[in-house]
């Protein structure tokens, strides 16, 4: 049957119509049943509601007056209600108040319900309703009805439904069977026509339209479709031909594309092979790199902020950990473990800086090896790409042995420096100890030279003593200079000076000696050489004197040329070229070494052998150098270079002409000078020198005595030695300056200390000036005059002339100790009026007796040749 339903429109139409009718019938029956049941419920409920109202009204007095018997009687009024099985009243507390049961239904438990209910159960129908009096709740009345009335109603409904359903289905089937023909027959005809066209392929068939409904429209559609298919069939062949041609063209294009793809494929294959090869080469390169890293001496570690990524064998050896103990571990944990605690912050900071892109310099730090030993390394971190991020590669070199060596070297250096300092201290002390007695030697010799009572021979001895003393002092000064240079304690004191004037002064100094040896001294300055420069004049002067002195010393003929040129904007070059004995090639460098002289130098001139050494060291301190070129027996050229700054004329130091101080200008002024020195001879020298000038002198042997004298005698000037027993000069200065009176007193320290820094330290105590022992008379007096604001009377030329007359005997005595040959030359030059010769000879005398030389120079300058002759007579 279902097969028919699936294939036949006829059966489908019958089924649809019958099923629709059946569904409508069912819906109707269901509605009918529901309405009937609902109607039954409403009917029964209304009946029971009315009965409950009547009973409640009648039962209210009984309930109010608590009379259950009367209430039960009221319930008996329901006896005539056939279906009622039980009726009962419960009070407000839910307890049974009164009850009624139909005969045969007394065995019932009378359940107590609340509220208004209507309920149909399987066994009975239950109804309850509240009893109220004037709105006040008094109890609940209950009814229980027999279910039989309800069940019979249901049976009736079911029976009726079945009958209606059966009849309705039959009628519907018959009607559907009749009606379907009007639809199915034309459709069947159409279907047969389709089958015919399908088998015969004859699209010329046409259907005759029987009605104007949808089937008629379908017939029209069929006829139109058949016509269209006919037409379409005719065009189809042409279309197939066109499509075949297009397909062939597409096929050719496909073929071409395939060829192109094949070529691309080959190219890709080649590229893949190249990439594989490149990958293999990269792997090989990585292996090589790995081998290099593992075999290199330097330790290499690569780490990110999170993990240690790589360590090489050298790194593991360095700190004693295995690769497995480090690689893959937490970076901060390992860092804390292997970096020396004190260096941890430094290393972490450099790592942070490195990650932030800053350039990190090589640094030294310590690891702690697994065995707990400190390992010094020098490392430099750098950032490298690693696993799509950045990592730090740290390359470290074991510096432990180097550190040890360096420490030992440092200790050795410190020891050497300590020894050097000790040597310097020794030399300084020795210098002090020698200069102190030298002060007495030179001081007394100067004083004695003025003594008119001395005979010629004695005066000659005194001069010899003075000359020897000065030579000794020069030697000590040389040694001290060497000591200071070696100790790096030379302090340069730049000042503005006239370079030309300085050179001419030096040349003038040596003119007499050069003339004596028949040498010519020529000075040449380039035009671009600045005249006023700023540099340490005394040191430059010292070097130039040394070089010219050497040139004269080792030359017996020819010309000594002094050339001054500008080497660059801040460097001058002074060349001293002679035509002397020269220096052998093997000695060219040695002559700059201390105590080294050529054999000829030793044999001919003697000396300390320190001059050139000191000069070169000083030249280097001045920013330049001294070099030498020489040919034996042809001469030598010494080139002295030194740095300079531009000088200023107004800063030029004034050179006062040497004038001998005669006495204080104000002869009546009582100037009190306290001489403080632990050496009686030194006190005596100062006392003698100052007493002649007109000062009132008192002496103190040590600091304590000095303080007493200061308080009681109140001196104007104090000449203070520094190194003294009981209380030294420094303490004396601080105590005196601490008092009110001590603010005004002039304190001049007179010390044998020759170190510049010591001089500065003493000046910083608050003293007015510092005079170095052994002092020149004028040096001391000038210092006192400047600091105390005193004026002196000097020997002017007229007075000097007068003095010459008055003191002729004196100068005669000095002249007498000159060599006979020199005296003869001097006399000859004076007779001839040969000024040049006279100057040359006076220069010679100046080397041994400056006093006489000064006197002779004044006479020569004033063209007083007769006076010279008189002295010589």
């Amino acid at each position, binding site marked *: 049957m279902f097969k028919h339903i699936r294939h036949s429109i006829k059966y489908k139409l019958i089924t649809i119509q019958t099923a629709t009718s059946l569904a409508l019938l069912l819906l109707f029956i269901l509605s009918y049943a529901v309405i009937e049941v609902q109607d039954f419920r409403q009917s029964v409920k209304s009946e029971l509601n009315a009965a409950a109202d009547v009973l409640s009204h009648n039962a209210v*007095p009984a309930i109010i*007056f*608590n*009379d259950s018997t009367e209430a039960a009687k009221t319930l008996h009024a329901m006896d005539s209600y056939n279906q009622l099985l039980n009726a009962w009243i419960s009070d*407000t*507390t839910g*307890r049974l*108040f009164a009850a009624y049961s139909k005969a045969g239904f007394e065995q019932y438990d009378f359940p107590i319900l609340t509220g208004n209910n209507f309920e149909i159960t399987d066994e009975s129908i239950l109804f309850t309703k509240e009893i109220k009096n004037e709105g006040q709740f008094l109890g609940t009345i209950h009814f229980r009805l027999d279910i039989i009335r309800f069940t019979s109603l249901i049976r009736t409904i079911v029976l009726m439904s079945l009958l209606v359903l059966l009849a309705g289905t039959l009628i519907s089937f018959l009607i559907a069977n009749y009606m379907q023909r009007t639809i199915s027959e034309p459709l069947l005809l159409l279907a047969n026509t389709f089958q015919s066209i399908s088998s015969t392929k004859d699209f010329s068939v046409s259907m005759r339209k029987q009605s104007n409904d949808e089937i008629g429209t379908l017939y029209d559609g069929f006829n139109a479709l058949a016509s269209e298919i006919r037409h379409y069939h005719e065009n189809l062949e042409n279309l197939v031909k066109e499509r075949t041609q297009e397909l062939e063209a597409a096929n050719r294009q496909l073929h071409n594309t395939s060829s192109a793809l094949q070529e691309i494929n080959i190219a890709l294959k080649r590229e893949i092979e190249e990439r594989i090869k490149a990958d293999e080469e990269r792997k090989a390169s990585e292996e090589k790199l790995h081998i290099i890293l593992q075999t290199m001496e330097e330790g290499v570690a690569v780490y990110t902020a999170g993990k240690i990524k790589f360590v090489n064998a050298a790194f593991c050896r360095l700190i004693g950990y295995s690769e497995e103990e480090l690689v893959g571990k937490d970076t901060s944990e390992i860092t804390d473990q292997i970096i020396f605690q004190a260096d941890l912050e430094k290393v972490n900071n450099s790592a942070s800086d490195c990650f932030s892109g800053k350039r990190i310099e090589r640094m030294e730090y310590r690891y702690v090896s697994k065995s707990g030993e400190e390992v010094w390394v020098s490392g430099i971190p750098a950032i490298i790409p690693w696993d799509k991020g950045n990592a730090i590669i740290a390359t470290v070199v074991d510096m432990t042995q180097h550190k040890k060596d360096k420490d030992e070297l440092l200790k050795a250096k410190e020891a050497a420096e300590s020894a050097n300092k000790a040597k310097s201290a020794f030399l300084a002390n020795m210098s002090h100890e020698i200069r102190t007695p030298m002060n007495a030697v030179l001081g007394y010799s100067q004083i004695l030279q003025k003594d008119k009572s001395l005979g010629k021979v004695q005066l000659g001895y005194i001069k010899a003593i003075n000359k020897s003393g000065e030579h000794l002092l020069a030697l000590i000064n040389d040694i001290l200079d060497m000591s200071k240079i070696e100790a790096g304690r030379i302090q340069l004191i730049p000042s503005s000076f006239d370079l030309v004037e300085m050179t001419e002064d030096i040349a003038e100094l040596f003119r007499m000696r050069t003339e004596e040896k028949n040498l010519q001294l020529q000075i040449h300055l380039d035009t671009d050489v600045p005249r006023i420069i700023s540099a340490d004049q005394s040191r430059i002067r010292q070097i130039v004197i040394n070089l010219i002195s050497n040139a004269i010393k080792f030359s017996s003929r020819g010309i000594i040329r002094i050339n001054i040129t500008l080497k660059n904007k801040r460097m001058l070059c002074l060349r001293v070229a002679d035509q002397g004995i020269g220096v052998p090639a093997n000695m060219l460098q040695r002559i700059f070494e201390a105590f080294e002289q050529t054999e000829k130098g030793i044999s001919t001139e003697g000396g300390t052998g320190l001059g050139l050494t000191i000069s070169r060291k000083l030249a280097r301190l001045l920013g330049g150098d001294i070099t030498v070129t020489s040919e034996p027996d042809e001469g030598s050229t010494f080139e002295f270079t030194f740095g300079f700054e531009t000088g200023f004329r107004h800063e030029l130091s004034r050179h006062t002409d040497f004038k001998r101080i005669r006495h204080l200008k104000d002869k009546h002024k009582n100037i009190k000078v306290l001489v403080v020195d632990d050496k009686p001879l030194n006190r005596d020298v100062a006392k003698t020198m100052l007493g002649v000038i007109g000062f009132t002198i008192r002496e103190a042997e040590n600091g304590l005595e000095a303080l007493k004298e200061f308080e009681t005698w109140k001196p104007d000037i104090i000449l203070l030695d520094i190194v003294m027993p009981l209380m030294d000069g420094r303490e004396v200065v601080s105590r005196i300056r601490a008092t009110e009176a001590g603010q005004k007193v002039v304190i001049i320290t007179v010390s044998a200390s020759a170190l510049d820094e010591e001089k500065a330290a003493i000046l910083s105590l608050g003293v007015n000036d510092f005079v170095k022992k052994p002092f020149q008379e004028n040096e001391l007096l000038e210092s006192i005059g400047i600091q105390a604001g005193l004026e002196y009377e000097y020997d002017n030329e007229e007075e000097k002339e007068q003095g010459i007359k008055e003191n002729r005997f004196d100068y005669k005595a000095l002249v007498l100790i000159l060599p006979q040959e020199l005296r003869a030359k001097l006399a000859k030059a004076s007779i001839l009026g040969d000024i040049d010769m006279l100057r040359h000879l006076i220069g010679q005398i100046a080397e041994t007796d400056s006093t006489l030389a000064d006197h002779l120079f004044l006479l020569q300058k004033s063209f007083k040749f007769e006076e010279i002759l008189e002295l010589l007579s």
Partner: protein
Amino acid sequence: MLHLKYIRNFFTVICFLLSASQMAAQVKGTPENIMSSFIYNFTAYLTWPVEETKAPFKIIVLGSNEFFQPLNYIAGVKMVKGRKIEVKLITKESEIEPCHILVVSEDFQKSLLTLNDNELLHETVIITNCLGCLTKGASINFVSVNEKIHFEINKKALDIKSIKASSQLLKLAVKVI
């Protein structure tokens, strides 16, 4: 003592407000409390000849304070046919005044005859609680049957005073004369 009495009366009133029957059935109130609630319920089934709608419904208790307390509380919470209830306690016959209900305690049962003749009580329902008082002139008298409180009605006395009792009330009375 006064305090305990107050509590008890209050409890009685609450029970009364729930239901008279409930109170009678469940609450072990004093007989006076139950009778008081009955007295209030009688007003629904009795009809006085003259019913003034605005004047208070007056109940006088003669002699016994036991009735006064519960009735006074009922008067505070209930009304009779829309009228306020006024309850008064007197201890002397001379204090009697016109009222709807006069509750006479056992102390004054001897005075029943005189009270019946009192002109002031010609429309008053006299309620007693003593054996045989119904025949002595009481309109309604409380009796105890099987330990339950019931009442009996003197219909004649009510008829004389033109006071009508409903059939339902008469039906509930254990005795009607």
